[in-house]
């Protein structure tokens, strides 16, 4: 508000810019934010869309889940204290033998309950939902991606891409593996088939990343040319959540990139390819203009004695945070010159970690 204030007129909350209110919200724990929703309209919409950034540590087995629960840490608060989050295991009772933790998707944890069913769990609101069957149990690899809660449609979307060896009529294919896409929306509570993408032998990375309304998977295409020479290249499969269209973008200069040692991520607000090399981890940020090109490259040296360091996120202070060997958080300062370690695993336990933004998205009626 640019109105010239009379010297003594006080400022009201309405005149405070949204960005500053967001900064205040980030300092408040999620449970208290629930109260803030009942204060007034602008707080209500603010709370629903802008919540804290967290790192969630996912145990690698459901036994670990039952014993230790999940842990969360705040990257923007300097990774100070580790909070323990113990989910109610009654959620998984029905599927306790076959349930596997698949991963995280934008504030929600995804679990594979059996061949054909997914479970979604929101750690912030402690809500759990079992999704209906897709009607297309996977034969080959299954890949998922989760879109953000979209306030325009007041809904969230989940995408399932199954690379199947079978065509719709049951015919087996050896070279062209059609990738069948299905979309699930919270409101419809059902899966809907959309277009297939037939490609040559390809391998999709399991977990999609989400950025600005699109989902991205890293894909490796293997081609056999007429002289029977095998060549491989990496592409990014982009799925636009609004119009539900798929397109492929080839990555530049990928001779040094191998799918096995590369991973897509969203770090520092940009789409990146993280590649694990001998002594360091390189984070290459991608610019999408007409074609994909590399913009910034950040390189972090693995701590001595560690074999594997996965970048998880970049804090607001430009510290690169990685998970080393499934046990330690390694936080590099913004110049990449020094690092500090925080142990988060318990002894031998191996953790996978995911960066997410807290969400109060309703998954649907709770399973009692």
């Amino acid at each position, binding site marked *: 508000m640019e109105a010239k204030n009379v010297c003594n007129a*006080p400022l009201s909350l309405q005149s405070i810019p949204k960005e500053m209110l967001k900064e*205040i919200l980030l*300092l408040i724990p999620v449970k208290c934010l629930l109260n803030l*929703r009942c204060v007034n309209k602008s707080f209500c919409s603010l709370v629903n869309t802008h919540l804290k950034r967290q790192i969630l540590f996912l145990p690698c087995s459901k036994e670990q889940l039952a014993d230790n629960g999940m842990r969360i840490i705040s990257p923007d608060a300097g990774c100070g204290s580790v909070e323990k989050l113990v989910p109610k295991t009654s959620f998984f009772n029905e599927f306790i033998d076959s349930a596997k933790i698949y991963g995280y998707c934008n504030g929600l944890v995804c679990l594979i309950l059996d061949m054909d069913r997914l479970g979604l769990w929101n750690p912030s609101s402690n809500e759990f939902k079992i999704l209906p069957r897709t009607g297309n149990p996977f034969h080959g690899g299954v890949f998922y991606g989760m879109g953000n809660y979209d306030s325009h449609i007041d809904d969230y979307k989940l995408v399932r891409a199954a690379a199947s060896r079978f065509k719709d009529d049951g015919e087996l294919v050896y070279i062209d593996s059609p990738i069948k896409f299905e979309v699930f929306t919270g409101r419809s509570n059902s899966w809907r088939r959309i277009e297939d993408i037939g490609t040559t032998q390809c391998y999709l990375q399991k977990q999609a990343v989400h950025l600005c309304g699109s989902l991205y998977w890293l894909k490796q295409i293997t081609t056999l040319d007429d002289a029977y020479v095998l060549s491989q290249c990496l592409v990014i499969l982009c799925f636009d959540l609004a119009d539900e269209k798929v397109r492929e973008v080839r990555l530049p200069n990928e001779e040094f990139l191998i799918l096995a040692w590369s991973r897509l991520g969203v770090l520092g607000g940009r789409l990146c390819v993280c590649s694990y090399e001998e002594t360091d981890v390189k984070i290459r940020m991608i610019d999408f203009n007409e074609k994909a090109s590399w913009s910034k490259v950040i390189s972090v040296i693995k701590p001595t004695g560690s074999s594997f360091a996965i970048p998880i996120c970049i804090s607001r202070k430009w510290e690169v945070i990685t998970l080393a060997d499934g046990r330690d958080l390694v936080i590099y300062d913004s110049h990449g010159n020094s690092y500090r370690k925080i142990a988060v695993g318990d002894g031998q336990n191996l953790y996978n970690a995911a960066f997410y933004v807290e969400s109060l998205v*309703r998954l649907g009626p709770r399973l009692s």
Partner: protein
Amino acid sequence: MKKLKFIGNPLLQSREKINMSSDKKWLTLKTTEDNEEFVVEESVAIMSNVIKNMVEDGCASSVIPVPRVKGNAMGKIIEFCKKHTEESDEKVLKEFDAEFLNLGPDALYDLMVSANFLEIKVLLDSVTTKVADMIKGKSSEEIRNILKIENDLSAEEIEESRRENCWTRQE
């Protein structure tokens, strides 16, 4: 009526105005809304990124006009910056901040907006944390009272939110 405020020793102030090779530089900040002038050490003033940039760009020769910030807020801000440049003991600063920020919501908003405009990160962080602490753990009614916010939600909307909260916090 112009009011000239000296922060620091006035005797030292006048001597240094003549001595060109003094190691302490002084700046005059003038709030354009109410025409109050403040004379501060440059080292204190440059806690504001905005003023720091002006000084580095060489446009801070005479009087620096500061729009959008009122005189009493400016005075408080200078008091804060001065303490933070002089004192390096974390504990002392923490106690100072707690006392300093013991203000009503209107004054806090004023400080927040001014600190944001002048880009004084330390002050902005302190005020933001203070407001967050005021909200944490309070019911929505209490929050409305503390922050002096009017309730514009309908009875149905409040009831729906309350039901949702019960349900998400259960278990």
